[in-house]
């Protein structure tokens, strides 16, 4: 399968899929601005998302058995040229991002029309497409510096997208500003880390980096590079206690943006962490094992509990979800910190399952914002009867968030607990279960508010429009589907984990 | 409940004969006939006891008699007022009216 040895001439369109994956939305972004039509902005975005999804599917199918596609930009062979390297792990992530985009965009049409001023629509979708292509670029590239470039593309557009919430609440501006500062620091740390690596090895290609680092072993430069990269990425993935930008950013961003970012942005960052921890460096290095087990693991556990407690006491549904996201990222980091195949599988599968769960919930938030104006518990009280379909989806998403058997959330927690047992760390397994109990509490609070409390007397809420309900339910049903059909997700995650850990493919 | 269905149909009158004294006479004759019939055919029994003439007749009669006596005795012991388990049981509840739905 690998095009590695194939001469660059006479390639078919099919061989260009890796770059088309990025180029389609990347070209569509300026196109929306040049055309400048508010009416055309959405269709262009949607069309390019659909094309991306198709490409992502084709790529995933090519690599799902453990193959690797190496694509050389402009025909320049790595390590000199930039390489796009598609394997099961990042094809899976790219597919998740594209799928979420295709689901969220139909929802965004109404939601954005309500929450973002009309004159900004063309620019909004342009920023959205940039963010979208940036996130996929981060995942697909095999070049460390290129990761930084795409990270910046996605981050800069994300700041704009969050600030777009200012039409409804001015605090979106400070949230975006905070995130700008933090994100920039994160990116700077990241690029400093890469600088260290370049200094230590003289290359930027990840595969090449991996070889050289393995060959020469660790030294202070490499170790410093690792620490900087870890902190830099930690900021992007809201690694506790570097999460402080996240609650405000998710709360004040337009609902569609929250849904998209919650399901994709942090997940892509988790992927980058996986890539650096397992491909570039490797569990063979003592410093990595030490850092992951004595810094990341305890903080992941703290995240699971502290953020869940905060979520329990929240009185705003959207903000509660933001804190729950931080706790859920704790699970993924925990999986990575196990440094075993099962642990990494759990992290990857949770990355996917949590993505669809949060997409469903944040989209439901958008529906409540549209109909009730806000998502404070006293504003959405009693909406279970007035918006039965939306609320039923919230219940399904909530069950998946808790990890009830039959939902996607159960599968990932199950694998995670298995990973903990494999290592013999049963106290950690107990902690995972205990923190799930906290999820029961904060989900129950929402269910209670929706179904058991009387609606506000001045409430005029009616069921959300179909363009919102269909995406919400697609995501909600996906939560159930992937809770029952575990072959697809678990299989892909296992292949990805085996690939990352350099084990023989399944 | 509804009293307006008093016109007993011819078909019903035929069925009512089952409960009449004449039917009892028929039953007695039938029993006698069957008992006699037992002597008229060749048996191929599984067990010796079957070869006793009229075994099934006698055994049937005796078994029912024994069970009736047992039921009478035990009935006195086991019967309780209808609301014994109330309110956790349906015995003392009226059946919710379903027939209204059908009319």
């Amino acid at each position, binding site marked *: 399968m690998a095009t590695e040895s194939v001469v660059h001439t006479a390639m078919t369109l099919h061989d260009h899929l890796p770059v088309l994956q990025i180029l389609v939305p990347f070209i569509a972004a300026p196109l929306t601005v040049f055309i400048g039509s508010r009416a055309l902005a959405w269709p262009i975005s949607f069309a390019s998302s659909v094309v991306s999804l198709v490409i992502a599917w084709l790529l995933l199918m090519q690599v799902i058995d453990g193959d690797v596609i190496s694509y050389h930009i402009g025909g320049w062979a790595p390590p000199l040229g930039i390489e796009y390297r598609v394997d099961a792990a990042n094809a899976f992530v790219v597919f998740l991002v594209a799928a979420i985009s295709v689901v969220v965009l139909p929802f965004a049409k109404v939601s954005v029309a309500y929450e973002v001023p009309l004159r900004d629509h063309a620019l909004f979708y342009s920023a959205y497409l940039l963010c979208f292509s940036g996130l996929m670029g981060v995942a697909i590239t095999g070049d460390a510096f290129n990761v930084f470039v795409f990270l910046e593309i996605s981050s800069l557009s994300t700041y704009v997208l969050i600030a777009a919430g200012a039409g409804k609440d001015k605090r979106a501006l400070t949230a975006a500003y905070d995130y700008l500062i933090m994100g920039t620091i994160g990116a700077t740390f990241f690029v400093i880390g890469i600088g260290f690596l370049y200094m230590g090895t003289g290359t930027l290609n990840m595969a090449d980096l991996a070889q050289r680092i393995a060959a020469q072993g660790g030294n202070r430069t490499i170790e410093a590079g690792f620490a900087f990269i870890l902190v830099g990425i930690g900021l992007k993935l809201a690694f506790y206690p570097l999460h402080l930008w996240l609650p405000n950013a998710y709360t004040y961003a337009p609902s569609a943006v929250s849904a998209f970012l919650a399901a994709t942005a942090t997940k892509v960052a988790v992927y980058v962490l996986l890539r650096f921890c397992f491909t570039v460096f490797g569990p063979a290095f003592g410093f990595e094992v030490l850092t992951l087990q004595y810094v990341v693991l305890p903080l992941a556990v703290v995240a699971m509990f502290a953020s869940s407690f905060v979520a329990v006491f929240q009185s705003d549904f959207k903000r509660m979800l933001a804190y729950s996201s931080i706790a859920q990222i704790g699970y993924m980091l925990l999986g990575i910190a196990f440094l075993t195949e099962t642990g990494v599988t759990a992290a990857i599968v949770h990355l996917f399952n949590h993505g669809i769960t949060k997409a469903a919930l944040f989209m439901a938030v958008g529906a409540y914002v549209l109909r009730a104006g806000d998502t404070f518990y006293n504003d959405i009280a009693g909406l279970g009867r007035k918006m039965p379909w939306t609320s039923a989806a919230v219940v399904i998403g909530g069950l998946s968030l808790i990890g009830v058997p039959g939902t996607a959330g159960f599968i990932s927690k199950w694998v995670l607990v298995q990973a903990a047992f494999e290592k013999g760390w049963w106290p950690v397994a107990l902690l995972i279960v205990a923190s799930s109990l906290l999820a029961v509490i904060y989900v129950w609070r929402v269910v209670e508010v929706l179904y058991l409390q009387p609606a506000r007397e001045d409430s005029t809420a009616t069921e959300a429009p179909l363009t919102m309900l269909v995406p919400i339910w697609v995501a909600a049903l996906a939560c159930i589907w992937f809770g029952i059909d575990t072959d697809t997700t678990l299989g892909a995650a296992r292949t990805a984990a085996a690939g990352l850990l350099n084990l023989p493919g399944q | 409940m509804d009293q307006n269905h008093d016109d007993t149909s011819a078909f019903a009158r035929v069925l009512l004969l089952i*409960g009449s004294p004449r039917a009892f006479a028929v039953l007695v004759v039938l029993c006698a006939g069957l008992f006699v019939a037992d002597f008229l055919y060749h048996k191929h029994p599984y067990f010796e006891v079957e070869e006793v003439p009229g075994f099934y007749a006698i055994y049937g009669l005796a078994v029912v008699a024994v069970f009736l006596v047992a039921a009478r005795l035990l009935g006195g012991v086991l019967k309780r007022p209808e609301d014994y388990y109330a309110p956790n049981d349906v015995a003392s509840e009226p059946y919710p*009216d379903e027939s209204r739905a059908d009319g």
Partner: protein
Amino acid sequence: MVELVPPFLVYFLGAALLPLVPGAALRSALSLLVPVIGGWLIWTMPTGTHDVVTLMGVDLTLIRNDRLAAIFALVFSFAAFVSLVYAWHVRDRVQLVATLLYSGSAIGAVFAGDLITLFLFWEGTAIASVFLIWARGTEGAYHTGLRYLVIQVASGVILLSGAALFWRETGSLAFDQMTLGSPATWLIFIAFGIKCAFPLLHSWLPDAYPSATVTGSVVLSIFTTKLAVYALARGFAGTELLIWIGVVMALFPVIWGLIENDLRRVLAYSLIGQLGFLVVGIGIGGELAINGVAAHAVSSILYKSLLFMAVGAVLFRTGTARASDLGGLVRSMPLTALFCLVGSATIAAVPLFASFATKSMILSAAGYKGYEGAWLALVAAAGATVVYTGVKVPYCAFFGADSGRRPAEAPWNMLLAMGLGSAACIGIGVFPGAFFALLPYPMEYDVYTVAHVITQLQLVAFAVLAFVLARRFGYLPTETRSVVLDSDWLYRRVLARVIGGLAQGMSIAWAGGVRFQEAWLNRVILRLYRSHGPASRMAQSWPTGAMVQWVAILLAVMLFVTFLA
């Protein structure tokens, strides 16, 4: 993978889609298609195992089709069809969905090729069927339903633990012939026994079945117990212990059946009695006995649902099924009375009716194998059955002392359903050969021998004579409104009292503990709220500088740790 449409899927799809159909008549009409399509799938299904799916690493065999499974699945389909006709008038969507899920689960369980699939459908029947009891909507029905659910789910849990142990012992989950001996097989045996109403495990049945709705009782009488019979026949055929269990089951319900006042409860006891015959047959084992079990299971489904339908029609029209409140209804419900008599004649095994052909196979099997005690007991039970079900039910409802009630004849759909059931009872009785061709094993068996006809007629006629004489001399048990105690008294009364006493003592100690704990819990929550609540430092929006400070701290920690290595 899935190469055939499993029949249960048709039922589950029907249960999912039919509630969305507007219009009660259209819904009822469409619901009839479900067993028809399901039955056609079963009829055309090739034998062997199909549809092996993998769920969380376990291979589930959704379909293992052979002649034993097929005949149970077919009669379940037919009975489901009849009961849906009977329930044509019901507007309640819950009952429709429950009926379909229940029938579908039972059929799914019959085709289950492994213990896990069996368990899933086993619990499916438990959970779906309880709604037929709750649909009655009274407080008593709610509590009865809960008791029923607990016992049924417990049966499933025991089955699952048995399956788990079985897997550890043998490394296989296949559902095939087992031998009693290990804890695993005992657990599975007991799980089957609960659903099959073994003595002392039976009391859920007369408790629950008469508490369901009119249509619900009919549906309940069909599936659960016959599914258990199928499971026993599949797993424990030839287990001698079953013969003695079956004998007890055939005999003891006679007494309760004679005493009981509620006619649906009488039928429930007689259902246990008939299960006794089937269980004896399974215990005997061998081709003739298993053929007899399959055949008699079919006919007992037919006549038992027919009798439940007839008594149900009376309950539907008069609002009561108490023998003490009924009598003489033949005057205004002659057709219902006629169908009830067909059911009676069938359960009494009168020649030309189904049981005459089917019951005798089990008796013959007992004869061939020389189980004289069991044979005598079964003949006794057969004679008693003539009286306590065959005569008592029609006598109390339709003949006997005139209660003065003149309810309207049953609605057309009920009459049609009873007609279908009656036709099947007579059809099998008149043409047993055609029916025997469907049985699990090929056999030569002649039903209509002179000896068999005459001896059976003797048994029936003299049993009836005994009843009539007892009535003449006033020796029948009196029909009064009452509750008759059964073994459930132990847990409904004694246990409740004991727990009540314990609870009182505990509650005093508890109250003190709770007060202390509440105060403590309040303090904990308050503290958590102070540290994690919306106004706490954890949840506040932090100034940008403070966020950056965390970055610096973390970087320092990480650098330190990495350098340490």
